[in-house]
C-alpha cells in the first residue's frame, strides 16, 4: 500500500459511506494497481456494490479521499471529471443496456456522444468491439429485450469498452450465467485485459472468477477491507468472515482442486 501514487489506478483512503443511521463503509482504504485485475469479495449486502458505485460517483461519500488515475474527484473540475469518466467503462450487474436502442447503437452511443467520427468508422468500430466480446455482427440489429442473459452481459461489456477505457469496473460480471458461460466470460475478461492493457476492478461472488481472473483479491467485511493480496495471502487470513467464506462447503472443492 505504500507504493507511489503513480502506479495506482484507484486510491481510496478513509472512505465513509452511509445511508441514514447505517454506516456501510467505515474508514475503508484500498488501492488498485495499474494493469491488474482486483476482485472484491464480501457478504451480500455488505457494501461491495456501494464501494463500486461510490468510486464512480453514483453514491455520495461522507468523508475520505478517492483518486482515480491520480485525480481527486472532489477537487477536479467538471472537465477533468468528464475526462476521467471517459477513461473508465462500467459493466452494470443487469447490463443496463438502453432498451430503445439496438445492440449496435448501444455500443456506438458513447462514441457518438464523445467523439466526432464518421458513421462508417463508428459502424466498423462497433462491429469490432462486438466481435471482440464474441457477438456476431448479425446480432447488431437486435434489441436488448431479444438477447439472452449471457449475450446481454457481452454487449454491455462491448459498450463499456466503446471508448477504449483504461479502467474497467465490473459489477458481478458472471452472476446469472451458467458455469460454462461464466467460465467463457472469465476467459474473455482475462484476454481483453491482456490485449487492451486494462485495469479491472471486479465485484464478484464467483469463486471461479477469483481463481482464474484475479491478480489480487480484497475481502470486504464490517465496512472495511480485512484482507488484500494474491489468493494465497487471502486464504491464509485469520479473519473469521474470510475463513468461513473460503472454507465453506462450496469453496473447499475449488480451493483444493489446484493441489
Amino acid at each position, binding site marked *: 500500500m505504500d507504493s507511489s501514487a503513480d502506479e495506482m489506478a484507484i486510491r481510496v483512503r478513509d472512505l465513509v459511506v452511509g445511508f441514514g443511521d447505517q454506516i456501510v463503509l467505515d474508514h475503508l482504504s484500498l488501492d488498485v494497481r495499474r494493469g491488474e485485475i482486483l476482485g472484491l469479495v464480501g457478504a451480500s449486502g455488505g457494501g461491495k456494490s456501494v464501494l463500486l458505485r461510490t468510486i464512480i460517483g453514483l453514491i455520495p461519500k461522507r468523508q475520505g479521499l478517492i483518486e482515480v488515475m491520480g485525480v481527486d474527484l472532489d477537487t477536479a473540475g467538471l472537465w477533468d471529471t468528464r475526462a476521467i469518466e*471517459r477513461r473508465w467503462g462500467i459493466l452494470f450487474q443487469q447490463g443496463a443496456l438502453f*432498451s*430503445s436502442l439496438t445492440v449496435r447503437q448501444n455500443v456506438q452511443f458513447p*462514441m457518438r456522444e464523445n*467523439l*466526432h*467520427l*464518421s458513421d462508417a*468508422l463508428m459502424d*466498423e*468500430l462497433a*462491429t*469490432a*468491439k462486438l*466481435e*471482440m466480446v464474441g457477438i456476431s*455482427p*448479425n446480432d*447488431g*440489429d437486435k*434489441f*436488448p*429485450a431479444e438477447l439472452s442473459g449471457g449475450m446481454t452481459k457481452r454487449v454491455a461489456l462491448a459498450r463499456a*469498452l466503446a*471508448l*477504449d477505457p483504461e479502467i474497467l469496473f465490473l459489477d458481478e460480471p458472471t452472476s446469472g450465467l451458467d458455469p460454462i458461460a461464466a467460465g467463457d466470460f472469465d476467459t474473455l475478461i482475462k484476454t481483453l485485459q*491482456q*490485449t*487492451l*492493457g486494462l485495469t479491472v476492478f471486479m465485484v464478484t461472488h464467483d469463486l471461479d472468477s477469483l481463481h482464474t481472473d484475479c491478480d489480487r483479491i480484497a475481502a470486504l467485511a464490517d465496512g472495511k477491507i480485512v484482507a488484500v493480496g494474491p489468493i494465497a495471502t487471502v486464504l491464509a487470513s485469520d479473519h473469521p468472515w474470510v475463513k468461513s467464506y473460503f472454507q465453506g462447503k462450496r469453496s473447499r472443492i475449488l480451493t483444493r482442486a489446484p493441489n
Partner: protein
Amino acid sequence: MGAEPTLSTRINDEELEFTAIGSWTTAHADALEVLVAAAAAQASDVRNMAINMAMVGELDTLGAWLLERLARNSSKRGRQVRFVGLPDHYRGLLDEVRRVNRRAPTSPEKKNRLLVGLDILGRGAVDIKVDLVVFLEMVAALSIAIAHVLVRPRNLRLTSAVYHLYRVGWQAVPIILLITFLIGCIIAQQGIFHFRKFGADAYVVDMVGILVLRELGVLIVSIMVAGRSGSAYTAELGSMKMREEIDALRTMGLDPVEVLILPRVIALVVALPILAFLGSMAALYGGGLVAWLYGGMSPSIFIARLREAISVTHFEVGMIKAPFMALVIGIVACSEGLRVKGSAESLGLQTTTSVVKSIFLVIVLDGVFAIFFASIGM
C-alpha cells in the same frame, strides 16, 4: 494524454512507408480519422506498402483498427502490405483487430416501395384484427373470473378492490369536480351570450340541464378517468409484466385476471357512476352560478326552470352509460398493460395506446347509446 499522433509518408525502393508516431488512442480520435483518410488518398500506384509502428507511443483498439483498415484497403487493391517495428506488447491487440470485421454484416436488401407500402397496409389491417381479438379475449377472461367469483365469493380480492376504489374514486373527486364545474360554467356563459340575442336566455337552463345530465357529465368524467386511472392501470400492469411478476403469479396457480384485473375493473365500474353523478351536479352548480352572476337569473328561478326542463329520464340516460364506459376503459387499460414487452419504450407506447383507444371507444360507445336511446324513445 500522450503526444499528438502523426502519420508521415515516405517512398523508398518501390515501397510506400507510413510511419505512425505518437499516441494512437481514442483521446485523439477526431484527428486520427482525418490523418488516415488523407494517407489513404495519397497511397497511389506503388506496389508495396509498409506500416511502421516503431514510434507509436500508445495504441488502443481505435488506433489499431484505423491502421489495420488502411492496410486492408490497400491489400484489397493488390498491394503487398507489411507491418514493421510493432512493439511486442501491442502484438496481441493488433492480432485481435486483424480478426474482426472480416464478414460484412448482412445488410437488409432494398425492397420495392410499393411492396413496402402494401406491407405496412396489410400489417395495419392485421393489427386491427389483433386489437379486436385482444379486447374480446380480455372480455372473456374477465367473464370467466367473474363466474369464478360468483361460484366462490371468497375469491374476490375485496381489499384490493377497495384500495383501487379509493385511488380511482375518492382521490379523483377534487379534479373531477373542478373540471366539470368549469365546463358547466362555460356552457351556461356561452348559452346566455348567444341566446340573449333573440331573447331566449331563459332556455339556457334547458340546454345546460339536458346536455350535462344526458351527455357531457358522463362523457367528460369518462375521458378524465381514462386519462387519469386508465393510464395508471396500463403502466402498473405493464411494469409488473416487465418484471415477470405476472408470470410469477401464474406459476403460483393464480389467475392474474382474477387477482389483478378484476379488482381494478370492479373499482372503476363502481367509481365512475359516482364520479359522473358528482360531476353532473358540479356542472349544474357551475351553470346555475353563471346564470345568476352573469345572466341575472336568481337561483330559485333557475331551479324552478330546471325542474320543468329535465325529467328523471335524462338523468337515467346519463347514469346507465357510466358503468359501460368504466368497463370499456378498464378492459382496454388492462389488456394494453398485459401487452407490454421488455423495453421501457414499449411501456410508453402501450400507455399511450391505452389512453387514446379508451377515449376513442368511450366516444364511439356514447354515440351507440345515443342511437339506442333515441330508438327506444328515452
